[in-house]
Structures are given as structure tokens and as C-alpha cells.
């Protein structure tokens, strides 16, 4: 039970990072970006590539990675953001100028998703990869919690990043402009907010979050070219559940999805095992997110903290 909860919290924190990026993007750019998950993949794999170039720099005490991973993560953030801005330049910027509806923008993002996934497959191959072959052993923490040191670091880093994004949105001029555009685009433009700059910053913030989340998932689980695509449904469910554009909504949504996917399937499996029913429930983990989206949207069509847009 406690183990399930811990792994749910870790998984949830990775989803939350992505969900915050995705909710900002869905709101400010005003379309559902189906390529967002594949930027996770891109981030994770470009970090792998950088690690391959770097000499062995040792590891931090007790962790499975060292300074090499820090350099790799920073580089992968740069790569992911550049690729995002590149696709914005060749596709989305032009589509915005043509003025197509958001549904067509979503379809174009689907094309981008295929392009990235194919490129990752061609460059790195379809096999599952790991950053390090070493296996980590869980350690006992106070209060009877057992956790790998890597997991603790991921959790703390995710928390720092979420706080950083929160302060960026709350305190900086760019962050305020982003929130203004999200509230009311026309009004923001009328008061002199440069929409192009805001859109660029939205790509940058969500790119940073996607790359970091991808690297974290790579450290925690594994890397595979389809990992980002598999993240897409939980990510969108978290965004829709929290309400598109809501920072706190994405936080709540991401954690709820992460924890409940682990907890619900785990608990059902335990119950089945207890009463001797042969069934493998864990394969249906992704379906939990689907049930969630249906239930939440039936109760609250605009999400938990969503705002109704006119």
C-alpha cells in the first residue's frame, strides 16, 4: 500500500511537470498539442545522446547519476526547446497566420508527433534503453517509507521546478503577460502585450518541463520511443481534469492521475490475488486515466478549476 502510494507520487510528479506545461500551452496557444508527449521522448533521448559523448564523471553519493546527467539534462532542455521553436516556426506560426481553427492546429500537431517519433526511432532504434545498467536498492527512510535515493531526488527536483514555474508566472513580467493572454487575448493585445513573445515563452516553459519530465522518467523507469505517446493520455486527462489553463488544476490533476493509476490497479490486483482470481490487472493501468476523464467531465465539464470561456 505504502509502496504503491510512493510509486504513484513519483509517477504523478512526472505527469504534473508535463501537465503544467501542457495546460499553459493548450490555453495560450489555444489548441491541444498532440505532439507534446513526443517532446518527452525527445528530451529523454537527447540526454542519452549527450551522456554517450561525455566521459564518465562518476555518480553522486547513493545516486545512479552524476554531473554528467546534469549536463545532459541541461543540453536536452536546449535541444527540446529548439526543436519546439523550429516546429512552431515551420508549422504552427504559419497556421496561426492563416487563421485555421484549433482543431486543424491539433491535426497538424499530430503530424509533428509522427515526425518526432519516427525521427527518434530512426536515430536511436526502437529498443528500450536505460541511462545506466546499475540497479538501485530501496532504502529505509523515517516513518517506515522505503524509497530509492533517485526517487527522492526526482521528487525534490520536480517540486523545485513547479515552485519555480509558479514564481515565474506570478512575479516576472513575462509570466504576467502569459497569464494576461490566457485570461483574455484581445484585452491583453490591446494593453500592449506582445503575443508573439508570449507564445515563444510558452513554448520555452513547456519545453523545459517536457524535457525534464522525460529525463526523470528515463531515470526512474526506462527510455523507449513510444514513452511520450503513452504519456499523452494521462497528461491530457490531468489537464482536462484540472481545467485547461489552470496551474493548480494541472498540479491536482497530475498527482491524482499518477497516484490513482498505481493505487487503483494495485488494490484491485491485491483483492483478486486474495480471493484467488487469476487476472493481470496491471496491464489495464492506462485505462484508469480514461475512466477518470469520463467521470470528471460528466460532473464538471470544464474541469475542477477550469474557467468557462465565452
Amino acid at each position, binding site marked *: 500500500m505504502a509502496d504503491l502510494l510512493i510509486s504513484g507520487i513519483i509517477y504523478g510528479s512526472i505527469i504534473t511537470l508535463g501537465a503544467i506545461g501542457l495546460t499553459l500551452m*493548450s490555453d495560450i496557444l489555444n*489548441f*491541444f498539442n498532440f505532439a507534446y508527449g513526443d517532446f518527452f521522448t525527445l528530451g529523454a533521448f537527447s540526454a542519452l545522446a549527450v551522456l554517450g559523448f561525455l566521459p564518465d564523471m562518476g555518480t553522486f553519493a547513493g545516486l545512479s547519476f552524476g554531473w554528467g546527467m546534469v549536463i545532459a539534462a541541461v543540453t536536452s532542455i536546449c535541444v527540446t526547446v529548439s526543436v519546439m521553436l523550429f516546429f512552431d516556426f515551420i*508549422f504552427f506560426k*504559419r*497556421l496561426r497566420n*492563416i487563421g*485555421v481553427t*484549433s*482543431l*486543424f492546429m*491539433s*491535426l*497538424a500537431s*499530430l*503530424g*509533428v*508527433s*509522427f*515526425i*518526432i*517519433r*519516427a*525521427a527518434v*526511432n*530512426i536515430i536511436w532504434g*526502437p529498443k528500450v534503453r536505460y541511462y545506466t545498467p546499475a540497479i538501485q536498492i530501496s532504502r529505509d527512510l523515517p516513518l517506515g517509507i522505503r524509497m530509492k535515493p533517485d526517487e527522492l531526488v526526482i521528487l525534490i527536483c520536480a517540486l523545485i521546478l513547479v515552485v519555480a514555474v509558479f514564481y515565474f508566472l506570478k512575479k516576472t513580467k513575462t509570466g504576467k503577460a502569459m497569464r494576461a493572454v490566457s485570461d483574455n487575448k484581445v484585452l491583453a493585445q490591446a494593453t500592449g502585450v506582445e503575443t508573439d513573445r508570449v507564445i515563444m515563452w510558452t513554448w520555452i516553459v513547456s519545453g523545459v518541463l517536457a524535457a525534464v519530465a522525460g529525463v526523470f522518467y528515463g531515470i526512474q523507469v526506462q527510455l523507449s520511443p513510444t514513452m511520450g505517446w503513452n504519456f*499523452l*493520455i494521462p497528461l*491530457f*486527462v490531468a489537464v*482536462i481534469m484540472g481545467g485547461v489553463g489552470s496551474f493548480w488544476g494541472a498540479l491536482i490533476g497530475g498527482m491524482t492521475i499518477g497516484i490513482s493509476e498505481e493505487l487503483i490497479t494495485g488494490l484491485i490486483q491485491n483483492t483478486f490475488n486474495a480471493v484467488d482470481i487469476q487476472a*493481470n490487472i496491471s*496491464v*489495464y493501468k*492506462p*485505462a484508469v*486515466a*480514461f475512466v477518470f*476523464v*469520463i467521470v470528471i*467531465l*460528466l460532473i464538471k*465539464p470544464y474541469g475542477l478549476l477550469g474557467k468557462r470561456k465565452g
Partner: protein
Amino acid sequence: MINYLSSYLVMSCIYAIMALALNLQWGYTGLMNFGIGAFYMVGAYTSAILTGAPSAEHVGGFGLPVIAGIIGAALVSGIIAYLLSFPALKLRGGPFAIALLAIQETLYLVIKNESWLTNGVWGIRGITRPFFNLLNPRHYVFFYLIIAAGALAITFFAIEKAVNSPWGRVLKGIREDETLTSMSGKNCFLYRMQSFVFSSMVMGIAGALYVHYTGFVSPQVFSPLMSTFLVWLMVMVGGTGNNRGVILGAFLVWAIWVGSDFLTDFVPASIATQIGFIRMFFVGSILGVTILTKPQGLLTQKLLTIELFREESR
């Protein structure tokens, strides 16, 4: 060679039926369905189980005639669509697409893991192929081409008739402006549901036609790329809301898809193994470029009057 061409035409016809069904949803009703593969898959498996021979590994062995399998496929797809329409059709645009994508993933998991029903990843073999014993196996593909082309023609005329009827005009109205349509006293939910269920039944039939052609079905065939997004590409290339266009799109896109098989003979072996991903790359690129250059597709549709009204009111 002529066999190869006929086989290409059969698959094109099946995909064209899918594309027509998607066009009814997306092109005429504005439903962004990213889970069409689910109904195709359900149709395929329903027909395979209903007509299949008895097997120790999974249910089946009803041994029904093929026509019963096709009707069963349409019914089961239709019932699933009907049941799903209550929660799913409350959503619009992006969230609807996500919900349907999630439905497809969930049904895919069920098909893949519940081997008592579908024999899991090993798939179902030896599915009845209609009149296979009466014909020379080498000429069978020509016979099946007639069936597939006939089914395509029926689907085309049925959908053309439907969208040009008053019913179809309401659908177009919903696509353009749902509030306006409901203000004219139309029950939009009911119309969207009818469109959703009807086209899902057509997709089920397409799935049944597919399994009775290949005689084999396994979950791998229903990957989102092959069963959903390729069809989307066909509709986008052909022209949203244009039935002739999407048929053209289906034949064109499928020609590019199978045409790349020939390429494997001319490129080094190291690249040949990656042909699947290169295809995926091109699917993505074509989709993006089509939307960028010709958002309405190759054969563009005449503007609706309601569109003109909107221009003025802006």
C-alpha cells in the same frame, strides 16, 4: 503484378469505406474522432469470432455465414458507439478527440490481453473467406475486389444520399454553429449521436471486410497509426467534407503506403529495416504540409451559405 494491383485496390476500397465513415463524422458533423480504429477493430473481431471455426484457445466457433458476421460487426460496433455516445458526445473538439483516443487504447488493451475472447497477441487464424473453396485461390483477389468495390459503392451512395438529405443539412449546421442549429429547434445531441453511431457501424463493416479478405486478425493490425491516423491522413488529403475527395485520398495515400514497399528493394539493407519509421515520418510530414498548404484538401468543397454569414458578422 496484376494480383498485387488487385490486392492494393481491395485494401484501398476498405480504407476508402473507413475514410467515408470518418468524413461523415469529421467532415460533416465536426466530430474529431481519434478512435476510429476501435470500431474497425471491434468489427473485425466480431466477425472473426462469429464466423470462425471452433478453437480451444478462445470463444468462437459459431460458424455463422460471412454475411451474418458482417451484420454482427455492424451491430456490435453500433451498440458500443451508442453506449459510448452518452459520455463522449458531451465533449467537443480536443477533449472529444482525447476521450476517443483513450477509448481506442482501452479497447486495444482488452483485445490484446483477454485471450479467452480474442486469442490475445497470437490472433485468430483461419477466418472464413467467402466462396474461397469455389474459386481458384489465385483468382480469389479479383472476386474479393468485386465485393469490396461493391461495398464501397453502396457506402458512397448511402452517405452521399444521407448528407444531401435534410438530415445531412442539420449535421452541417452543427459543424458550422451548434448553438445556431439548436436555436432552430434541432436536437443537436441526437443528430450527433446518429452520425456517430451510423458511421461507427460502417467502420465495423469495414473491419469485417478486412478480416474476411486476409483470413487472419491480430492486435498488431490495429495500431493507432494503421487503423486511425492513416485514415485521418486520407480524409485530410482528400478534402474534409468531400466524399469523392476522401475516396481519392484513400487510394492515393494507400498507394504511397504500399509503394514504399517497392523502395525497400532499391535501398541498402540498413535503411530497409527502418522503412516503417520512414513511412511514419512521411505520414506526419504529409499531414502537416497538407494542413499548411491546402487545409480543405485536394478537392475543395463549396462554401456553405452559413460560412458566408459568418464572414459578414465578424
